[in-house]
């Protein structure tokens, strides 16, 4: 007596189309109800013709897939400059738990994707920051955390502070606040994920020609010197 291995359950669908003949209308496969012309609605996507052939297989553009992978495992460079770094550390710790977004810190720039500029950038630190940025592999993103990294913040009159890190390296996301709350930093990362995904859709990823830095550090320091002379 033949015993059904599946104990009476329905057989698993096979990865074989049941009908190989071409239908009238030139279609090759059978499609689900409504045909492949039917549109999806809300959370119910339009039936995918491959689903009938090979259920369980996902189809997507390679760009989208890569962007999804990138945006969900953002490794940040362990790099705190000033007060904002404390809030950055708080975000990583148990209470706020940054890990659930796939964000981990990594002490080496060679394996990092994101650089969080958490704190005041002073002119002495400008050169090392640029060096670190250049050591990071592409694609890479920069988040300017706090008003200091955005525009100089409370120290905008100081003789030694760079008026925003975007004078040295290109910045993707600016986070206001002094210091920004952990929630604000999380929001910045969600925005960054959206940006990575939408960039992939618009084929703007890896366009290095747009990622040229504003000014070299040498220029920055010489510009200060001229300011001092004219003053």
């Amino acid at each position, binding site marked *: 007596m033949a015993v059904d291995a599946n104990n009476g359950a329905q057989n698993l669908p096979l990865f074989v189309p049941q009908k190989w003949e071409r239908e009238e209308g030139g279609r090759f496969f059978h499609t689900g109800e409504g045909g492949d012309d039917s549109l999806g609605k809300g959370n119910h996507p339009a039936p995918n013709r491959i689903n009938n052939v090979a259920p369980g297989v996902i189809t997507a553009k390679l760009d989208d897939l890569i962007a999804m992978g990138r945006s969900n495992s953002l490794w940040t460079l362990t790099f705190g400059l000033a007060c904002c770094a404390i809030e950055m550390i708080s975000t990583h710790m148990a209470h706020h738990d940054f890990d659930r977004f796939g964000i981990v810190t990594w002490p080496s720039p060679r394996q990092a994707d994101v650089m969080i500029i958490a704190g005041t950038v002073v002119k002495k630190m400008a050169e090392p920051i640029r060096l670190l940025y250049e050591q990071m592999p592409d694609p890479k993103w920069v988040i300017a955390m706090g008003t200091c990294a955005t525009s100089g913040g409370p120290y*905008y*009159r*100081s*003789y*030694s502070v760079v*008026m925003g890190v975007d004078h040295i390296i290109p910045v993707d996301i600016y986070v206001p606040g002094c210091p920004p709350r952990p929630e604000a930093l999380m929001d910045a990362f969600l925005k960054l994920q959206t940006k990575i995904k939408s960039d992939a859709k618009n084929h703007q990823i890896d366009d290095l020609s747009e990622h040229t830095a504003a000014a070299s550090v040498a220029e*920055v*320091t010489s510009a*200060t010197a001229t*300011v001092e002379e004219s003053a």
Partner: protein
Amino acid sequence: MTEQDPLAGQPEAKGPEASAEKPVRHGPPIVVAEEQLNERGEQTAEQLARTLGALALDAAGRDDTPWARVDASQLHRAAEKCRDGEMGMDMLNLMLAVDWVDRIQMIYVLYSTTNNRKAILKADLPAEAPKISSVTDLWEAGSWYEREAHDLFGVEFPGNSDMSPLLLYEGFEGHPGLKSYPLNDYEEW
């Protein structure tokens, strides 16, 4: 128009000729604080006077901290006496430079961990090429404070072997601690 002229009590508006003269100071008159030592401070002041002897040009104090002004060339001797004498000032708590525009004043806050007393030494330096002997051989803490004062105020310390920039970077021009150093208004650069 009326008697209650809003400008009545104020000094006359400055014309172009007025600005050439001494700047007119608005606002309430400056009050100078009365410096007074308390009982504990008096005792420390006596000790300080005994220790320094004729070296002290000038002395006063506030609360429990007396100060004595010494000649810049004698500062090292005075500091050594404070450290090794009865006061036992074994810690250089703080050292700072003050830019009084016509001169630069060095202030040394000394502290004794054994007697728990504070005292201050002051020395005036010329505004042009200020120079004072180093106290690094007396207190280790002097070295960094001196490098800082060198960075920010341009004070020279013969006797301190390492005078490389501490807070500023190589090639920074000027001494930003001085009142004459401009602070930027916001500008793009």
